């Protein structure tokens, strides 16, 4: 039994179980299965231990595309066609898988008080969809066949739609459909890319005589186009064909336009200005656990997409668009911060802060430097820890006060001391305080961006503008803390109970991670990711160099 398959489909089993077990056991079953999934995903650790040390090459190999726990089963085969059930993990996917299982587990715990929600009908359906969603998310991270990837990507869409739409707040319909429309718009472009990449890789191989050695598997010959994401990235024949300026798609340069198609698809998920407007609504309307999932995992898919598809497969595209993307990233950073500063809705503020943080991810990736990639990756993980915490903090108070008006709060630290302390940790983590997870990602990205100045002169100003966000972030977070937690105790909130044991457990475990990641970034994240990231970056830069030698310059129209 392949471990990844088990990890991916265990939640599905739980989901089915939720439909059959008696109503009063549904919660237990759900929590149990998500916990089991978490446990299983922890079994991946032994594979990657020691990634920082001597056996790094043993784990990450000597070139991009060294995978573990691989499973390849033919699914839809044809004479010129092979769609496989192809799962595998490397340093890029592994941390995200663990993050997903972890956040899902905690979110599942967070839904424990389902029965006391405003909309508390259909507990079965809720947990069924919830676990289905988890399967979808895990699938996205481990699927290495583009077709399969796309399937999981879409599978995850519908449960999320219903989770927001059925159990959401006042304007849930609006938020849900907006989420759905935006994401589908993105995946439509991805679909086009999916078809195009298959056939163009086929053309490449045909042009090379109809049979080409695989880029990363020994003794495997490619006879026709492929959906294998690693293959597309590593096979030199395909790569050079994709990159060549004479390969046109609808009269435009293939690499350039494909990169954009994929990019937009993922940028909507990330989300990046100006595609971010679905995020605040979705977050505000979604129930707390769903917000946790949304912020903790779904947004990461965008970044994962960049790193898995856009850059390895279309390095030249990345080169052409680098400036634009970096600018967009910086805009999101600043813009998100400004919007957050102006919010009066607690959850909305946190949502916008996510936009700002995700901007760092894009910036770090766009500049294509070691530190940038590492920082972006770390930022994803860090944000995956801190933002669920923030959203849960919002949820905790929303459960009690049933409103999210920042200005109506105050003095909560006095009313609920433990909650106040947790909140301080959570928000300082997302503020990017050194010693906490938020800081590492930002600094790495900033330094990485500055480092890119060598090849892109425009990187300096961008890095500096991005650095200015530290002020902005401090401003809105501290202002938030002041308005919500500080000040005199309010009569209306006097009676509130402090966080319960369950809530404390969720918050504490996240808080511990916030600090652990901040103090031991290498041991907690970098050892697992850097190997793959560096190899990938190396390959990307080589590809770019190769193309620029053959003097194929950028520009959309070939």
């Amino acid at each position, binding site marked *: 039994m392949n471990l990844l398959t088990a990890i991916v489909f265990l939640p599905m089993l739980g989901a089915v179980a939720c439909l059959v077990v008696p109503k009063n056991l549904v919660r237990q079953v759900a929590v149990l299965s998500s916990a089991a999934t978490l446990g299983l995903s922890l079994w991946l650790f032994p594979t990657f231990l020691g990634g920082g040390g001597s056996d790094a090459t043993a784990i990450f190999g000597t070139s991009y595309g060294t995978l573990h726990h691989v499973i390849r089963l033919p699914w839809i085969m044809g*004479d010129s066609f092979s769609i496989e059930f192809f799962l595998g993990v490397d340093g890029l996917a592994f941390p995200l898988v663990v993050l997903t299982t972890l956040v899902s587990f905690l979110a599942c715990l967070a839904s424990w008080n389902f029965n006391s929600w405003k909309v508390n009908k259909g507990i079965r359906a809720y947990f069924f969809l919830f676990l289905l969603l988890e399967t979808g998310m895990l699938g996205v991270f481990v699927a290495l066949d583009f077709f399969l990837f796309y399937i999981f990507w879409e*599978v995850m869409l519908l449960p999320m739609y*219903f989770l927001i739409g059925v159990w959401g707040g006042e304007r*849930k319909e609006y938020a849900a459909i907006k989420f759905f429309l935006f994401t589908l718009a993105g995946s439509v472009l991805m*679909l086009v890319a999916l078809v195009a990449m298959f056939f163009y890789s086929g053309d490449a191989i045909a042009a090379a005589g109809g049979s080409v050695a695989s880029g990363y598997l020994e003794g495997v010959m490619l006879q026709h186009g492929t959906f294998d994401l690693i293959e597309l990235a590593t096979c030199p024949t395909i790569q050079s064909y994709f990159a060549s300026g004479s390969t046109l798609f609808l*009269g435009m340069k293939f690499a350039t336009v494909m990169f954009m198609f994929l990019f937009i698809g993922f940028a909507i998920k990330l989300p990046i200005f100006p595609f971010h407007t679905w995020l605040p609504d979705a977050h505000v309307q979604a129930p707390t656990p769903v917000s946790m999932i949304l912020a903790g995992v779904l947004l990461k898919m965008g970044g994962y997409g960049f790193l898995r598809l856009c850059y390895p497969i279309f390095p030249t595209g990345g080169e052409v668009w680098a400036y634009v993307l970096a600018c967009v990233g910086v805009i999101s950073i600043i813009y998100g911060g400004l919007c957050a500063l102006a919010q009066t809705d607690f959850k909305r503020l946190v949502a916008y802060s996510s936009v700002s943080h995700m901007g760092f991810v894009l910036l770090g990736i766009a500049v294509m430097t070691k530190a940038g990639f590492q920082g972006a990756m770390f930022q994803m993980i860090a944000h995956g820890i801190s933002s669920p915490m923030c959203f849960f903090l919002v949820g905790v108070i929303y459960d009690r006060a049933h409103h999210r008006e920042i200005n109506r709060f105050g003095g909560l630290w006095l009313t609920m001391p433990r909650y106040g302390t947790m909140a301080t940790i959570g928000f300082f983590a997302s503020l990017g305080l050194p010693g906490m997870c938020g800081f590492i990602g930002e600094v790495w990205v900033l330094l990485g961006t500055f480092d890119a100045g060598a090849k892109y002169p425009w990187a300096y100003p961008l890095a500096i503008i991005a650095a200015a966000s530290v002020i902005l972030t401090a401003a809105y977070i501290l202002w938030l803390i002041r308005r919500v937690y500080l000040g005199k105790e309010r009569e209306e909130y006097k009676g509130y109970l402090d966080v319960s044991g369950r809530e404390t457990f969720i918050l504490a475990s996240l808080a511990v991670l916030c600090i652990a990641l901040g103090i031991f970034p290498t041991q907690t994240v970098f050892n697992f990711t850097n190997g793959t990231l560096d190899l990938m970056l190396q390959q990307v830069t080589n590809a770019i160099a190769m193309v620029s030698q053959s003097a194929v310059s950028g520009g959309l129209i070939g």
Partner: protein
Amino acid sequence: MNSLLGQTNLWEAFDVGRDLFLFSPMIAMVCTMLLIVACPIVIGRGTRTISVAASFGIAVTFFLAWRVMGTVGDAAVSGFSAEPFLGLLVADKLSVGFQLLLMVFLAGVSLLWLMGSARTERNAPEFFILLIGSALGMSLMVSSANLLTMVIAIEMASIPSYAIVGFDKRDRVGAEASLKYMIFGAVCAAIMLYGTSLVYGLVGSLSMTEIAAFTVAQMSGGANVTLLGVALSCVFVGIAFKISAVPFHFWCPDAFQGAKIEVTTWLSVASKAAGLVMLARFMSMMCAAVPSELNMNLLTPLAWVIGVLAAVTATVGNFAAYKQQSVKRMLAYSSIAHAGYMMMATAVFIHPSASGAGAGMSAMLMYIVIYMFMNLCAFGVTAMVSWEAGTDDIEGFNGLIRRSPLLAVPMVIALMSLIGMPPMAGFIGKWWILVALGQTGTLLGWSLVVVASVNTLISLYYYMRIVVQMGIRDSGRRPAFSSPLSGLALVNVCAVVLLVLFFAAGPFKERVAGFSTSLYSVTVTSPVSHESLAVADQEAGQ
């Protein structure tokens, strides 16, 4: 049929036994109709009796079709003609397979009718006769290899449909619908016939293969094909009417809305599918007529005409479906859109000798199969909901997930499938069409890929409106209700099939791809000699 008269000994011309066997499914349909006519006289006109008879007939037809399927090899067999490929009708995997499909669908529709209108209707015999009659017409459409048979088949499919749309004599709307359908159909048929006459004049024959060969020869010769173009477009009008391709789609929404929902279900899939298969057959013959792979772009203009029409159809259908309040009408428009998608596949021209030949055809066939189940499911649910609510207004779906989950869940699956979202079969259908388009690698192909994908997004909106009504918005006013068990079974089975077809996409494709392989065996050995009109005119002068 010149051969018919050319031959001195009529009966040696062809092997009667074989041909009769090949076309036994159609004969079986005719017999079924006769049986149903006889029933009232002999036994009585009770709904039960008639339905038993009908289902017996359907079963027999299905069985026969299955048998034929077994015998029909990869080579197409053309019937009622001595010369192998100049016959009037063709029996190949495509046509027979379509008949099989048609029977399955027919069974589903009849089941739907028995659950619904049958309770109020007293005219079971007439209904079944008309239904099976149109089915017969459709199976003729898919197996016709000659313009004449095409025309007859189309009429045979249409005329019962006109009647069946206005079946309920007391229904004002139904009457109006049938009137419109009939008039529009008549006009299109007339134009098609005129076109046929012109084609005959130009080609000197009505055999599709010869027409294809002639057309290709003309185009490659760079001769002036103006008149031929006019003639063919007139012929195309008739086909487009069946497919309800823009701008010949006007009848579709009105007729579908006016007709009983079972009838709508029937027409929305069967007649369109038949038209599409007919078109596809014609086009594949065109491809086959092209001498070699290299001159394929002779057909580029043709591809563009069809492709553009398809794109327009899909887009118009999707946009027009917005703001519809009657689910029936909305689904009518959506059926136009889907016809557009399928039509795109017929714009895929690949030379038989090239790899991936028949990709378009098999993609279209798969889509038809999947579309059949999707629509059966969606219309089935709509039918039961509208019977309960007394209207097919979208409000009727309000809170369905609570009121009748066993209807709501299949509906969600069907709608997602119609949108084309994994893991429903609808996605696979679209996927293969996109693949087929991509395979051409032409500008047209990729543009259509983009158009189709974007249309998916457009269509999202109106399908989701139903989902929202069912799942998210619940006024709580409407009570829960129970539906006939058979109905629930029908829709749920369809839903399951939709899921299964997705995960079993591989074998499914293998199977369907087989249907299209035989097409290209219909090649023209010797292009027919042809006397130009001018010559003919001089002759006349002497």
